[in-house]
């Protein structure tokens, strides 16, 4: 879209303003990366001659079980996404293509989770996990998020746009409901699955408050909680090391984002248009 008239001077001014804002926006991250890759005496001093180093990363890696935290987060994210994909696909198919008793009420009850997200209910969910005897485990972190209202909603919208004729053709050939779902609906919704997967992975890689509450040992802590434990223990607050740890825990997601930024942005956009 090319909006109305604009003088060249106005355009130049706007370009400058947009770039200024962009520089302000990336400054914090650039500054953190500077600190992480330089010796601590250069943490807040800018000199082109400052030597680059990976020592901060080495120190951080040795000071806390980050390898384990990486493993925990990877397992958590994969587990949550796998279950979400199955549950949300089935539920979305039901809402999109089946006329069943109580469907509209059930759909509203699903949408409740868009408003009341699991972290708001952490006191009661903690109690439930304790009754189930799974406190301080990866499933306890993931369970409240596995039936994602957002995922159900997104897939239902997509399934509804798929022509019914395709389904009827498959039915004539004798395909069952599940076969129709797997052969007709799922393949046609691929871009939406990608979008949902990216949103889900970045959400759970970054999630903090509920994992903080429900974990208390190295074997179940995800990266975010591990990072918090690492940077809040009194180790003489060495900002270079803390920043290095921060960059390190963020790096996989950040690098993936920089490599596939078009897909990321388009996925978030797709998830946003409802």
């Amino acid at each position, binding site marked *: *879209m090319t909006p*109305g008239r604009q003088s060249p001077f106005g355009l130049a001014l706007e370009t400058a303003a947009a770039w200024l*804002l962009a520089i302000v926006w990336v400054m914090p991250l650039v500054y953190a990366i500077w600190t992480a890759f330089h010796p601590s005496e250069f943490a*807040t001093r800018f000199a082109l001659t400052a030597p680059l180093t990976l020592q901060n990363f080495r120190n951080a890696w040795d000071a806390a079980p980050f390898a384990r935290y990486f493993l925990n987060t990877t397992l958590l994210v994969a587990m949550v996404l796998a279950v979400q994909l*199955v549950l949300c696909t089935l*539920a979305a198919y039901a809402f999109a293509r*089946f006329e069943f008793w109580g469907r509209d009420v059930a759909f509203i009850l699903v949408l409740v989770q868009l408003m009341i997200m699991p972290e708001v209910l952490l006191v009661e969910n903690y109690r439930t996990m304790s009754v189930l005897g799974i406190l301080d485990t990866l499933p306890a972190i993931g*369970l409240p998020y596995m039936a994602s209202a957002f995922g159900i909603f997104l897939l239902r919208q997509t399934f509804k746009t798929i022509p019914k004729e395709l389904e009827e053709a498959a039915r004539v050939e004798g395909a069952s409901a599940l076969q129709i779902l797997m052969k007709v609906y799922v393949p046609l919704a691929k871009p939406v699955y990608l979008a949902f997967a990216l949103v889900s992975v970045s959400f759970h890689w970054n999630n903090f408050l509920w994992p903080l509450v429900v974990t208390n040992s190295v074997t179940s802590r995800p990266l975010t909680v591990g990072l918090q434990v690492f940077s809040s223990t009194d180790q003489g607050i060495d900002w270079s090391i803390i920043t290095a740890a921060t960059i390190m825990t963020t790096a996989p997601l950040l690098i993936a984002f920089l490599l596939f930024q078009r897909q990321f942005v388009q996925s978030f956009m*797709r998830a946003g248009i409802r």
Partner: protein
Amino acid sequence: MSGEAAAMPASVTPAAAARLRASVQGWLLLLPAAALLALFTHYPTIATFWHSFFSTPKGARGSVFVGMDNYRQMIDDPIFWQVLKNNAYFALGTIPLSIGLALLMAVWVNGRLAGKGALRLAYFTPTVLPMIAVANIWLFFYTPQYGLFEQVVGAFGFTAPNFLGTKDTVLASLIVVAVWKEAGFFMIFYLAALQQMSPSLAEAAAIEGASRWYFFRRVTFPLLMPTTLFVLVNAIINSFRLVDHIVVMTKGGPDNASALLLYYVYEVGFRFWDSAYAAALTMVLLLMLGALAVGQFLFLDRKVHYR
């Protein structure tokens, strides 16, 4: 159900049998998700309400019914009121600023400025970072006598205030962090809406000689209204939901000046282990989110988002 249908073949028409089969299949497909939602969203919502009328079990003494005691305690609790006020200020500071910036960013990225791709990348990057990492980075900036702000202000011969250690500045400092983190996220929704807008509108406006600002004010902005409302609802939810940065940066201090409602729930529930009072506090949170849901239902054009 299906056994019953088989037992009375004469009274069941084929259409009714098909309806029944669809009903059973529908529920079976929904069942796994519905069970988890019931266990971790609906049940805890009701249980919060129930437990807010009981006392916290202490040692040998179990939980007993105390009626409105937890709510009475809440009304007499100055920290509760402080936290509520903080949350209101935090929301009022964060929401208009991040939505305004998001709209500006989207218009710029969607326009014909040089280097649009790089601009979009710069605006969106904070969104992919975990709030906890963001908080660590900003904590470093705000550090007195050492951080980035001290360096900048110090260059002019002044001393930067202790941003996070002073009651007057702590909330504003957290608002800056939240806006930095969220504006790029909301930009995406505006960008999506702008790209769906018909280019013929702009062409017509150009022929009519409308200025850019006039076009934005009279055409673009009204057309973006559904997006603005959608973003607004999400921004309000986030202002209640996102407290990660408080755990890292201030722990609610100094003197509760930066504690938000959910952070207070966390503190009462998991640092003082008073689950009954935490339930009463959670009820306030749930009531606000409920009011938001009702408001959205009544005032938003549901067709825009939910059809």
